[in-house]
């Protein structure tokens, strides 16, 4: 287990370094100088030069890269060009909207997909299975932002159970926050739950065809017992992979859904920062999202290795 972990942590670090270089380089070639952008069109050239110096923009690229990366380790992300507040604080405020939304949606997706997938596999080719497959096929095709608008139309516009948008903040209480997040989370979760349910079903069907299930049935277990005691556990590995991948989809999806519900999350922070050329915010916010995705992939890999010792020998 230890060599596996060491190798995996090594590749985690390598991915993070590579990702940070890519992000830094992309932001580096953005046209438009932040200093002249902040000072407006009529600024004198020496004023712009002075601001560039005070922002540290005149240093060579590799020094600025080094300071950015080491700063992140110290929890210092620099100061936003437009808001004049530490980028760390800006991001911290927004993360507490986007991350809970993503986790809420991931939980919903898993809670819906699991029983639906098991039911479809257990009643394979029955009318139940056929309708589940039909509905999930449709669910995959529905864009989450369109679904979000339909939910708003029905549950906020017609039924008035939820408000159509806005986030009261966690200060308003846990349940008020969760209630505000419910429609966005459902909009994010249902299309992903369709994918997950299909994966759960096909993975379970593969497992049910294995010899050890026949053995379990032969030693006298009922279909149901064989399903619960042996099949589901073994079917979970592909399902776990998809859940890991979905985290990244949901995090990116949250950026769009937040706009529809006017949520003050990472999405609105990044979009505003881009239009205001507040590149120091874009750089760190994107890095944080990529970090989250790489970290989740890492955790999924480690979880596999714990669950299945055969996988510790490295992937083919």
């Amino acid at each position, binding site marked *: 287990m230890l060599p596996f972990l060491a190798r995996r942590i090594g*590749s985690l670090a*390598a*991915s993070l370094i*590579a*990702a940070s270089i*890519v*992000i830094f380089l*992309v*932001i580096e*070639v*953005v*046209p438009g100088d932040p200093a002249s952008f902040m000072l407006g069109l009529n600024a004198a050239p020496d004023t712009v030069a002075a601001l560039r110096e005070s922002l540290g923009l005149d240093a060579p690229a590799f020094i600025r890269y080094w300071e950015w990366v080491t700063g992140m380790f110290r929890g210092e992300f620099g100061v936003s060009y437009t808001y004049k507040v530490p980028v760390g604080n800006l991001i911290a405020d927004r993360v507490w909207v986007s991350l809970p939304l993503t986790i809420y949606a991931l939980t919903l997706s898993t809670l819906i997909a699991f029983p639906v997938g098991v039911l479809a596999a257990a009643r394979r080719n029955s009318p139940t299975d056929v309708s589940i497959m039909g509905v999930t*096929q*449709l669910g*995959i*095709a*529905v*864009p989450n*932002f*369109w679904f979000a*608008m*339909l939910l*708003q*139309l029905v549950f906020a*516009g017609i039924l008035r159970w939820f408000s159509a948008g806005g986030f009261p903040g966690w200060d308003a209480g846990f349940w008020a926050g969760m209630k505000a997040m419910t429609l966005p989370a459902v909009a994010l979760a249902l299309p992903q739950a369709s994918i997950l349910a299909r994966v759960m079903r*096909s993975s379970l*069907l*593969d497992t049910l*065809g294995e010899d050890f299930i026949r053995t379990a049935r032969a030693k006298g277990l009922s279909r149901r017992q064989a399903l619960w005691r042996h099949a589901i556990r073994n079917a979970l590995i592909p399902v776990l992979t998809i859940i890991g991948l979905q985290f*990244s*989809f949901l*995090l*990116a*999806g949250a*950026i*769009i859904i937040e*706009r*529809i519900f006017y949520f003050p999350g990472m999405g609105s922070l*990044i*979009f505003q920062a*881009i239009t205001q050329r507040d*590149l120091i915010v*874009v750089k760190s916010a*994107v890095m944080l*999202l*990529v970090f989250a*995705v*790489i970290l989740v*992939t890492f955790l999924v890999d480690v979880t596999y290795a714990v669950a299945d010792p055969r996988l510790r020998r490295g992937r*083919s």
Partner: protein
Amino acid sequence: MSDMSLNSRPVSGVIGSALRSPSFMIGFLLTVLFVLAAVISFVWVPYDVTVLNIPNKLKAPSLEHWFGTDIFGRDIFSMIMVGARVSIAVALVAVGIGIVAGVPLGLLAAARHGSLLDEVIMRGNDLVFAFPALLIAIMITAVFGPGAINAIIAIGIFNIPVFARLARGAALSLWTRDYVLAARVAGKGQARISAEHILPNILNLLIVQGTIQFSLGILAEAGLAFVGLGTQPPLPSWGRMLAEHQTLYALAPQTVIFPGLAIVLTVLGLNLMGDGLRDIFDPRLRRAR
């Protein structure tokens, strides 16, 4: 990775089973419907989508305007026809980028399996995978500004690792085959074996995956256009039609429902066609499922 080459059948058999596969036929018809709408829109649309007619805005569906009119008085049915062009073109080119760049990389990685090159290609793929497509698009937009071309690049970049992985995985299992060994004995180089023996045998897989990436591309393009990073006015796009009427859904539901349905039906069609093709190319899978 499943090995479809064993099950290749004569073309007439493939067409026959295509006609008998309901999911392929429904998917195929839906896809043809939207491709036709896009093609016809070049020569004829019911109403000119570049002409604003404000007094005629937000009309409910009628015989005159089948899907009603939008906030600027434009005919929604015509806009969906023209929007199909953008969606299909963006997704198609993005799939093309993925195949043209990804497949050779995957074949190269498989041919040099275990080498440093293989490792570099695969880790590069992992890196691209770590950036959700939307983030790639946001960063490209930050640099070059929004537009259809940048949306294509963003979605295309995301497609490269998908095809590279698929090609590598499928090619690896073929490299152990006797006919590949025979080709090596005959003195053929890695590039020639990849092109002449490996590629034709993974074509089925690539077609199926291409269909699926095509549908994901349609969804991604709509998402980018929705947040203002995709196609810019005046060219209509399904995603932007939704964004423009985001606050009007209660007043004029048709402005939101029809463009959304267009996206859903196109994606559904492509997915059904992909599923159907997979079953047709590999009958073993159909029995197993």
